């Protein structure tokens, strides 16, 4: 059993949240951790360290309600290039974003010029309202990066979207090429990372690069 206020549990929780954002996030849904309720750690011989977590999550666009989520994070021994395995179960319903997603999709598809922006949020924490969905998609993309690159000795947060450029495609997906700044807590480094996200209202998001 681990104290939720101590860093080992907090780091594993950050991985689970990254994974969840990748899986369930979108331009109209930004998941964040409200509270880490419980954490347990188990050392599995020849495999690695397994963390069992009970998380309370909220959607930043719908903060009046929360959902509970159980997550299992396994950091593999030895090979540092292997991403942790994550399994999650979300209990309860997340607010539907079908309408907002479709609206966003239509808006971007109908843009004459490809969308391009930088510094989201800006130095003062401001986000232009029309760029909020772009930031939330950056959470999806960085969620993937954080999940794939975390170890027990790291804790990543998205610090800022340094640059984003939409790339028009001939198929139905939207494509956004991001340069995100990830803040790594343990080393305190702020690391730029290039990541391309493909997104579709029904198929969701996936990282292609």
């Amino acid at each position, binding site marked *: 059993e681990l104290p939720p206020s101590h860093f080992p549990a907090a780091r594993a929780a950050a991985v689970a949240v990254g994974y969840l954002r990748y899986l369930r996030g979108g331009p109209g849904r930004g998941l964040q951790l409200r509270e880490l309720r419980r954490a347990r750690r188990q050392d599995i011989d020849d495999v690695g360290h397994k963390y069992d977590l009970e998380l309370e999550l909220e959607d*930043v666009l719908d903060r009046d309600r929360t959902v509970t989520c159980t997550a299992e994070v396994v950091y593999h021994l030895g090979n540092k290039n292997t991403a942790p395995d994550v399994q999650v179960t979300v209990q309860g319903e997340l607010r539907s974003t079908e309408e907002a997603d479709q609206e966003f999709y239509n808006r971007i598809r109908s843009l004459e010029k490809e969308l391009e922006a930088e510094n989201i*949020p800006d130095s*003062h*924490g*401001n986000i232009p309202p029309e760029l909020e969905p772009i930031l939330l998609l950056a959470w999806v993309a960085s969620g993937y990066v954080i999940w794939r690159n975390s170890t027990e000795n790291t804790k990543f947060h998205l*610090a800022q979207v340094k640059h984003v450029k939409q790339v028009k495609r001939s198929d139905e997906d939207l494509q956004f090429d991001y340069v995100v700044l990830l803040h790594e*807590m343990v080393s305190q480094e702020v690391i730029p990372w290039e990541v391309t996200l493909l997104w579709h209202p029904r198929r969701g998001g996936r990282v292609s690069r």
Partner: protein
Amino acid sequence: ANMKLIFIFSALLGAALCLETFVGHQVLRIKTKNEEEVKQLQLLESLEHLELDFWISPSAPALPVDVRIPAVSVQSVKAFLESQGIEYSILIEDLQDVLDKEKQEMAESAQRQRSSSFDFGTYHTLDDINEELDHLASEYSFVEKIQIGQSYEQRPLYVLKFSTGGSGRPAIWLDAGIHSREWVTQASALWIANKIASDYGTDASITSLLDRMDLFLLPVSNPDGFVYTHTSNRMWRKTRSKIPGSVCIGVDPNRNWDAGFGGPGASDKPCSDSYHGPSANSEVEVKSVVDFIKSHGNFKAFLTLHSYSQLLMYPYGYKCTRPDDYAELESLGRAAANSIRSLYGTTFQVGTICKTIYQASGGSIDWSYDNGIKYSFAFELRDTGRYGFLLPASQIIPAAQETWLGLKRIMEHVRD
């Protein structure tokens, strides 16, 4: 004489007005020579329908009597006094004039204050912050701006000293912005400085605190880094010192203190954001504080503000063993976190640095604790990662307000 008095003033009975302004009202100062005259004025005072307003009531011959007289009665009262041979002089010819002038002055002063008023709910440049420090020092007699040294690029390190007197009183240290990108900390420090200054004399707790102890507040511990976050790189953390033998610049000032220096949790690589520097206290920003605190010799608390993560931590960071005062610091930390939560529900985790965030050597509160300053705490302010370093300005004041409650709780404990 009494009969005359009653006659004159009864005639004025019907002339009593319902006053809305003080146009034509006069204030007289009456000098009585004997008990008889005092008695006459006391009789005058008893005639309520005259609506005389005695600012100083008749009591003894030696004391002056000041009275405001409604316009309609001025001539009659004067006539009466003269007929009785009672001396008087005119203090105020027309009270409304005086009130009008006062109102205008107040409006002008409020206007001056509004236009030079500092907006604590927005992020400011170093120059603006220094200007506000000057303003606070000039506005409050017990607030003084002192310079404890200068940064690598020779910017002054300004500390606000809050002292209501005494000499070498036990003192509390509070700093912010040692890591320059943590903008909510410098901003909060300014709000807190203003809060303390303006609450002294009205808030019982602050008043008794400053009546017994001094407070030293360093709002911008790393001015070079701070300027750099404005001009070049918002994410800059370290100082801006040149490192011999490296192209990289800057040392992590919170790995540079002489507490487990060079140990785990700090990097020996100059390009790293947690580079500990070539030696302990190599950074002038750190050395200036160390020298100041050592030469003062009577600090009882050392409090430092960082962001983000919402944590309230005490030593140690350089080792994972508990400090001797663990029980007291844990308990005080929890009490402070409860105070913080009481305002907006913001939760801070409490614990040692090593257990809560990571093992980190060369940190400031480890140094202060090992140098006899028992109440050493490090705060990590809002938020928990959604905005991180880029906390919206709209959250500055709420963050400062809640943090202040936590700091106050600790300071009260230290005071007592």
